[in-house]
């Protein structure tokens, strides 16, 4: 009985130790997932966001990107938009806040792949964005590349992925070139 009790005690202690280990030293994948959740929160904004909160949130958002980060957005509705560097990302985030009433962004179905050197990673995810006043949510596949810089996982590239592809079609004066 004593031995059984000791074994149970040891197993419980080992489980507690493992849990503590994962809390204190999370895997890169866990850190990246947490950071992406934070990015989604900082991209989102409420209609009653104050001026100071707005500036602080936009600054916090920029801090998740590397100084030379690239953002390439290519959607059928909006066409192609490219931003490079934290300044442009900050300006775009501020512009979005002034144009849109509110924005609620969620990153869903996140799939993180960490490179073997543990210095870079890619995250494939689905963005679900709801803009106030628009009946339909915006749904977009996105690929995010991250690098560990100065002990932090920073976003170096964001690119949209077309789920349904069409090769070079032209319509109503607009020319769409979409990769297959």
């Amino acid at each position, binding site marked *: 009985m004593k031995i059984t009790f000791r074994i149970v005690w040891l197993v419980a202690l080992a489980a507690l130790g493992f849990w503590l280990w994962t809390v204190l030293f999370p895997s890169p994948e866990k850190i990246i997932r947490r950071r992406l959740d934070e990015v989604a929160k900082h991209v989102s904004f409420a209609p009653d966001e104050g001026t100071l909160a707005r500036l602080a949130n936009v600054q916090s958002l920029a801090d998740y990107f590397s100084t030379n980060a690239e953002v390439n957005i290519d959607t*059928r*509705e909006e066409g192609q938009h490219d931003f490079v560097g934290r300044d442009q990302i900050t300006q775009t985030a501020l512009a979005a806040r002034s144009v849109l009433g509110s924005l609620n962004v969620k990153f*869903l*179905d996140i*799939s993180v792949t960490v490179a073997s050197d543990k210095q870079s990673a890619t995250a*494939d*995810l*689905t963005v*679900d964005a709801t803009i106030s006043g628009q*009946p*339909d*949510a915006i*749904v977009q*596949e996105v690929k995010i590349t991250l690098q560990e810089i100065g002990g932090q996982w920073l976003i170096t590239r964001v690119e949209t992925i*077309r*789920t*349904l*592809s*069409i*090769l070079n*079609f*032209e*319509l*109503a004066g*607009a020319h*769409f070139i*979409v990769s*297959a």
Partner: protein
Amino acid sequence: MRVVVIGRNWKLTLARLIVLVVACFVVFRFILLPIRVEGVSMLPTYQDGSVNFVNRLAYLRHGPQRGDVVGIRLADPDITRPSLMYLKRIIGLPGETAGFVNGTVLINGKALAEPYEKYICDWNLPPVKLGPNEYFVVGDNRSMPLQYHELGVARRSQIIGKLLL
């Protein structure tokens, strides 16, 4: 009252309950995925907010057919149960060419009869040649300009299953 609620043999009732719960879990997690339709892309066939199921076993014996309404994954294929999926109708099959001329679907250059299509559109899209595992999909609601409608080529691996209802 006790007999009505748990039956004469509580062990048998418990076993039945466990079987029922396990069966529901397996069916609704791996076979019939419950979905809620959001958006207007499939109007008038599927209303915004309606509930349906995606049958993942629909294409075990045969491939997707023209006219089928299917769930299309956006997420990484490793994610077995995606949170979001597109709901589209298959109009073009592998090896065919699919396009639009003044709102009419042309498959291999011939007009496709679409009894489910209730909205008139004026879309023009040059023919797209589909590969061996590619399907051309489009929503039923074509009342908006083409660039505001998500349509195009879906790979077989992106098709999760066929809508049940």
